[in-house]
């Protein structure tokens, strides 16, 4: 071995040694666990034969929370004038070329529209990319260029797009470079929108197809669908909507039911609860009820809900000194939640982490994907008239820099806001997407968009994005008729599925770890129902454990067992409570909804935090809260004192929050 080789294999702290160590670790794991690389040839070739289902790549999904080119006032783009000037000159230079390409696309689309089958063609913008030199570095588009170092002027790989009649989403494709994206954005506004949406049945079918493909990819077998009667009961119990059993599989009938007198107000209440993150039952004061009434009236007309939403977000402090209906609706939330909720709906931004962090904790966020702390506060300042009814001119907003200095947040004219005000397609689609994701999350209690920062076992996938696209395009085309969206979700493949047997309360103590994990994956991927909320006394819980494990000597300290299964009693908790209002006290109840073993791997960033308190605090932030509620905090401490595995604690906390 020569000297340089010796050096190569010396142990040390430098980067090269760490990389070598990683190699050795992975090879050791492979050798010791006999986990050799699988033969994926058949699977890849089979998928290669399928038409690519990707209209938006996973890159978009991951970068979506930031959408920096559309909505975030970046440091290098603090001057809106400069940005506009650059965009305008770019548009002038390449506008004609785009128009020609777009016209060609429209012609083909019109031809294709006569064919009821799903027709695919090659993206004209992407076709241009075929002319780039071969074997360039793969870092040129969203997925392949996370560093975003060379985004402009280059376009992504050739990629077929879906030509089912719907609003164009080309403008949002990450496969386009920045200039192309802004160009496409502007051309979007000139595109004629389809006059009528597709049949809701077809939208539902497209959503189901994507979902089935997602399950197929994850190799997941969905659980049985519940019977129509059970689905009806579930809808009635959870949402308070009355839908006939015979209608539960027909989207058009469900849509009609939701729009009927009996359900319409309850549905609007649910929609507002989804958007604000409040519990539907919390809308109880006169002002809230008035707002529900006015939104219900507006939503009766085509485009009425969209107009109401725009009215909320286009206001300035001078227009309405007390703020808008939205200001009233989000007032019960803490300031951080207000900003997170408003930005999520209005700007399609995920701002949960950037209140405190310049760079997200994976360390992999790139310049184009990340939102910096200062930008969070700029967004907060910009939407202050909406969230608090006061502009930062009247009531300055200060924040602390990492070095301890205090700085005043500056309100900026947000590009996303401009999109909304300008009634552009980009603005409409962002708004619709925010609405769809909120509704999906509220109905399924599992998010459509999977962030890598959440303790979620199943990965994000382009097919999930496609579901979001289908539903949000339909929402735009239907003039923001949310009854259609809800009907498609309620009659879809993911709704009304049985709880995996292994997660059934009766089986949770006898199930093996791998079975339990598989069950959790089925639930996380929306292929199975969530375990029911159910309460049990501590003694029954212990009896159940003894019954599940016959013949074994069990010494269960009652205090720990109770503590480990304690449930929060804080008002506003999503879990039912026997002694409401007794905030801060542990309810001496066990509940089968709580995981008894960890079923998901906690994100690496969580394990890198310095203390238990810090990890708990971050779990609160992840749920969009500024701080962890006192009762939940006590429970977390109690579980820790009982010696519970931290993964189980965080999983439980994520369920509680």
């Amino acid at each position: 071995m020569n000297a340089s080789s010796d050096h190569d294999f010396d142990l040390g702290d430098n980067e090269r040694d760490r990389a070598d160590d990683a190699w050795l670790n992975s090879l050791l794991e492979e050798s010791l666990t006999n986990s050799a690389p699988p033969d994926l040839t058949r699977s890849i070739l089979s998928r290669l034969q399928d038409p690519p289902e990707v209209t938006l790549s996973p890159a978009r999904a991951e970068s979506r929370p930031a959408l920096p080119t559309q909505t975030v006032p970046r440091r290098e783009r603090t001057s809106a004038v400069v940005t506009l000037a650059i965009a305008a000159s770019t548009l002038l230079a390449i506008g004609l070329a785009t128009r020609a390409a777009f016209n060609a696309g429209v012609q083909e689309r019109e031809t294709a529209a006569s064919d009821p089958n799903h027709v695919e063609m090659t993206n004209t913008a992407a076709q241009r990319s075929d002319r780039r030199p071969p074997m360039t570095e793969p870092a040129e588009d969203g997925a392949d260029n996370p560093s975003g170092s060379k985004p402009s002027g280059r376009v992504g790989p050739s990629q077929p797009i879906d030509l089912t009649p719907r609003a164009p989403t080309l403008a949002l494709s990450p496969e386009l470079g920045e200039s192309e994206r802004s160009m496409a954005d502007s051309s979007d506004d000139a595109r004629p929108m389809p006059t009528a949406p597709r049949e809701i049945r077809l939208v539902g079918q497209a959503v189901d197809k994507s979902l089935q493909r997602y399950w197929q990819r994850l190799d997941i077998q969905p659980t049985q669908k519940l019977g129509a009667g059970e689905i009806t009961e579930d809808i009635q119990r959870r949402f308070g909507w009355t839908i006939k059993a015979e209608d539960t599989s027909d989207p058009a009938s469900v849509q009609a039911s939701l729009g009927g007198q009996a359900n319409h107000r309850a549905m609007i209440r649910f929609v507002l609860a989804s958007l604000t993150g409040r519990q539907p039952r919390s809308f109880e004061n006169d002002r809230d009820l008035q707002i529900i009434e006015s939104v219900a009236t507006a939503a009766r007309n085509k485009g009425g809900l969209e107009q109401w939403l725009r009215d909320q977000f286009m206001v300035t402090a001078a227009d309405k000194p007390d703020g808008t209906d939205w200001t009233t609706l989000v007032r019960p939330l803490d300031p951080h939640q207000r900003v997170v909720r408003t930005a999520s709906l209005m700007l399609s931004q995920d701002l949960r982490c950037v209140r405190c962090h310049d760079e997200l904790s994976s360390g992999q966020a790139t310049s184009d994907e990340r939102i910096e702390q200062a930008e969070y506060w700029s967004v907060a300042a910009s939407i202050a008239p909406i969230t608090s009814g006061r502009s930062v001119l009247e009531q300055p907003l200060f924040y602390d820099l990492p070095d301890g200095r205090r700085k005043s947040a500056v309100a900026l004219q947000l590009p996303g806001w401009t999109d909304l005000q300008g009634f552009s397609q980009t603005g409409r689609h962002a708004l619709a997407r925010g609405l769809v994701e909120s509704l999906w999350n509220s109905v399924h209690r599992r998010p459509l968009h999977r962030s890598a920062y959440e303790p979620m076992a199943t990965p994000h996938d382009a097919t999930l994005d496609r579901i979001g696209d289908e539903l949000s395009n339909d929402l735009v085309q239907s003039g923001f008729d949310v009854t259609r969206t809800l009907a498609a979700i309620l009659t879809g493949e993911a709704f009304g599925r049985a709880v995996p047997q292994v997660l059934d309360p009766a089986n949770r103590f006898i199930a093996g770890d791998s079975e339990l994990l598989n069950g959790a994956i089925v639930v996380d991927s929306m292929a199975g129902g969530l375990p029911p909320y159910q309460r049990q006394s501590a003694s029954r819980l212990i009896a159940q454990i003894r019954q599940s494990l016959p013949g074994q000597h069990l010494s269960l300290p009652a205090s720990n067992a109770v503590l480990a299964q304690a449930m929060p009693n804080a008002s506003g908790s999503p879990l039912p409570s026997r002694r409401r209002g007794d905030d801060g006290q542990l309810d001496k109840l066990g509940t089968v909804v709580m995981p008894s073993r960890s079923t998901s791997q906690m994100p690496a960033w969580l394990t890198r935090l310095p203390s238990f308190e810090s990890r708990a605090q971050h779990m609160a932030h992840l749920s969009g809260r500024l701080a962890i509620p006192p009762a939940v905090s006590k429970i977390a401490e109690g579980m820790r004192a009982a010696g519970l595995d931290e993964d189980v604690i965080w999983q439980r906390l994520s369920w509680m929050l």
Partner: protein
Amino acid sequence: MSQVTKEGTTTPHERSPAELIDRHQSGIWRYLRMLGCDASTADDLTQETFLRVLRRKTFVQHSDSATSEYLRRTAYNLLVTNHRKLGRVHLSDSPATLDQSWQRWAGKDLTGDAATEALRDCMERLTERARTALKLRFVDNTPRPLIGEALGISDHGARNLMQRAKAQLRECVHEKLNLTQSVS
């Protein structure tokens, strides 16, 4: 069928998709594992990597080593984009550093098979205690203090034992790889 040198540096003819996958999938899978992916994530991203590249009409196969590098960059970017949980393996920020490491460990045959084989042989040279410690660590995910307890040594003792074992393995694997290369 194209002819490939042992070093995988030249391919006179383009490989078919099936041949290409067969040639490189093990290497890409191991590369992703080295980046910290668990086996399932490595499976998924390996598939995505090949789909991306094979669907790219501009993709040209100059040589196996160039293709391998191209695939690795795509895999790396997909991993970064997906922001998946990285597990316990420390990920270097620099793809260039990772590539250098790749060349040292798997660059000889582009798959990592030789390194894995060499490692299996080298494991036999370790003491029983060292092998036990590594098995507890990598198979059972046993925390270090418990490994120490199982072996009757302290936490630091367990750490030193595993560090020495790994250093020994590095050196042994490297010797074997160099020997293989010089023979071929």
